[in-house]
């Protein structure tokens, strides 16, 4: 069944189809869904803020264990992938299907890059006996990056092992759930890619591509908050 304009497509009297809501409706629905994701992560940010206030010394000490280089690489990867997905949408808006395919592939590859870096980060932590719920070690020296058991004092202040543990609990849970969203985003983008290859999307119908892009931007946005919170704040 072929149609020759968006208008005709949107008014097709086919009994039940997602297109009932139209392009605007679908986008609106996506934004509403993204609001729920913000609230989901909001709980974690709120929890982090509360424990940061309770254990300022321990959080400061523990955060030295996070590798800023890897964190920065991941930030660059995600920002670039947001750009590539935007370009993919732009390409299909202009009818350039092949270009869009390449940009989608690039986005997915960058996303897997993110997850690979994450894998190395996590395994490094495990190697140093830092597990969610059971962080036995921490970086005790900025300069040498030497790992040692959690000290009872640091920079003249008492250190509560619980505080260090809680930092890492938040680290693993927040970056882990974010990583899960990266994975979900990759799966969604792959599904869109397959559709793109099969020719489902054209310059007048690309709603799923755009909505997936929106989702991907949210995943990126959350990382933009996570990264400074964990890796940068002194």
């Amino acid at each position, binding site marked *: 069944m072929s149609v020759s304009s968006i208008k005709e497509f949107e008014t097709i009297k086919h*009994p*039940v*189809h*997602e297109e*009932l*809501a*139209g392009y*605007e*409706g*679908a986008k*609106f*629905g996506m934004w*509403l*869904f993204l*609001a*729920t*994701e913000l*609230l*989901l*992560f*909001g*709980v*974690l940010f709120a*929890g982090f803020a*509360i*424990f940061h206030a*309770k*254990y300022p010394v321990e959080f400061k000490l523990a955060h030295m264990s996070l590798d800023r280089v890897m964190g920065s690489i991941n930030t660059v990867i995600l920002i670039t992938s947001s750009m590539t997905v935007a370009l993919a949408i732009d390409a299909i808006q202009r009818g350039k299907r092949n270009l869009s395919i390449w940009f989608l592939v690039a986005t997915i590859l960058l996303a897997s890059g993110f997850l690979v870096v994450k894998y190395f980060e996590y395994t490094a932590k495990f190697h140093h006996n830092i*597990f*969610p*719920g*059971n962080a036995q070690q921490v970086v005790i020296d900025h300069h040498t990056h030497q790992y040692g058991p959690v000290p009872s004092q640091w920079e003249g202040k008492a250190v*509560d092992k*619980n*505080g260090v*543990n*809680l930092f890492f*609990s*938040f680290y*693993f*849970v927040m970056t882990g*759930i974010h990583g899960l969203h990266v994975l979900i985003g990759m799966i969604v983008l792959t599904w869109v890619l397959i559709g793109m290859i099969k020719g489902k999307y054209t310059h007048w119908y690309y709603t799923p591509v755009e909505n997936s892009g929106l989702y991907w931007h949210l995943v990126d946005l959350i990382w933009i908050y996570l990264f400074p919170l964990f890796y940068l704040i002194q």
Partner: protein
Amino acid sequence: MAHAVAHEHDHNKSYLEVGRSIWGWLTTTDHKKIGIMYLFTIMIYFAVGGISALLVRLELIAPGKTFFSPDTYNVLFTLHGAIMTFLFIVPGIPATLGNFLLPLMIGAKDVAFPRINLASYYVYLIGSFISLVSLLSPADTGWTFYAPYSMKTNGLVVWLTLGAFIMGFASILTGFNFIVTVHRMRAPGLGWSNLPLFVWALYATAIIQLLATPVVGMNLVLLIFERVLDIGIFNPAKGGDPILFEQFFWFYSHPVVYIMILPAFGVVSEILPVFSRRPIFGYKAIAYSSLAIALVSFLVWGHHLFVSGMSDWARYIFSFLTFFVAVPTAIKIFNWLATLWKGSLEITATPMYYTLGFLFMFTIAGLTGLHLAVLSTDVYLHDTYFVVAHFHYTMQGGTVFALIAGLHYWFPKITGRWYNKKVAFWGWLILFVGFNATFLPQFLLGLEGMPRRYFDYLPHFQTWHLVSTIGSWFNGLGYVIVLTNLLVSAFTGEKAEANPYNALSLEWQTSSPPPETNFITTPTFPASIYDYGTEGKEEDTSKTKKAV
């Protein structure tokens, strides 16, 4: 020259006559069928939750161990709460009546995202199965899962909370589906100021579903991580904060009670005008107060934490805000009473006497909320049977009775048939008496200081416990009669006409049951769908709106 070809979608067939196979139902994207599937499922869970309630009350018929051990009792009240909350009442009216009626009431052929609608049903169903896996080694945490107890206790708490988390997704999917539907799918000429109040109610509810659910979702995920990974966030021994769990939990669970009651208010607003032959009084006030309640509901969760160890200042603020949310609710009651004034009340109509009974029970529900909003009295009443009675009056006396009223009211529309009216009346009477007999004594128990979630109690509390247990048997019997009547009549009831009530809202302007695509021709709107009053009219305009 066109030959007569068998048309793929015969628009004159009712929705029940299309796609009749089981596969047809299971893969349907028709909002009406999805609503019915939700209805069957939640009703089965209602029965399971109801039986566990009867067993809880049975144990409490006398002090001491009557039938069960304390552990079994604790499991029973957990099951009752968890099943009734997550598997029955949260989907409740929106997933059943809401799904069926929303597109019909706005003149649309379906909701904005029909496939997501079907997905929400399966997400809910799978979530419910996952939570029921916990029955293999049932949780005894109470439906509120307070840490640290819920972190340490034996039992498949993770399965139960994971199931609740997944069902939360279904709630979110329904939420944004309804919001986009109301914004984008209204038939030409239907503005926001002419929307049926049930639609306003569903819209306000959807906002809450969207914004509150993720919070409890994440809270439960954190609880799961506590159990599985021992992360420590709620564990006092590891520097965590158990009260934080309560804060996150009630941030959702207070708004959720408005998810439960707002649609019920919507049903009442639809039924009263029809059976009073009066316009709804204060349309704007009711519509805006629904939105106001939805918004303010996010600001009062702390009233569940008045004796939790929270700061005193927080308690003052939450008490003040709690009074605030009482005002829009009171206004609705006055508006409904004014709708009855100078009307012609068909009090023998089943939906009408259910609704009138709702007004009685909801005044009790709402007013007893005040005892709990006042700080000094709440200190005494918190975690006593007074609270149990209050929330059963709102949830059962309010939401469940409204759901059943709505099922009776829209029964002809949904099934094309009538239920047995005599059986319906006796069922209602037994149910109404039984419900009040079960829960009125519990206010007295609360005033006497009887705590909640107690397996055993001191003998001087026995009198009211005994009355309450006996009441529960009639409460249960009432449901059996009422629901059996509806179920059997759905298949064998006498045929009903398209608009037996001469009602004005759009769902009545199509056949009973409706065709698959709801309307054969695009419906047109009367100036007001509540224009029932006859005074000063030459002709009763409601009488001229006959069905297609």
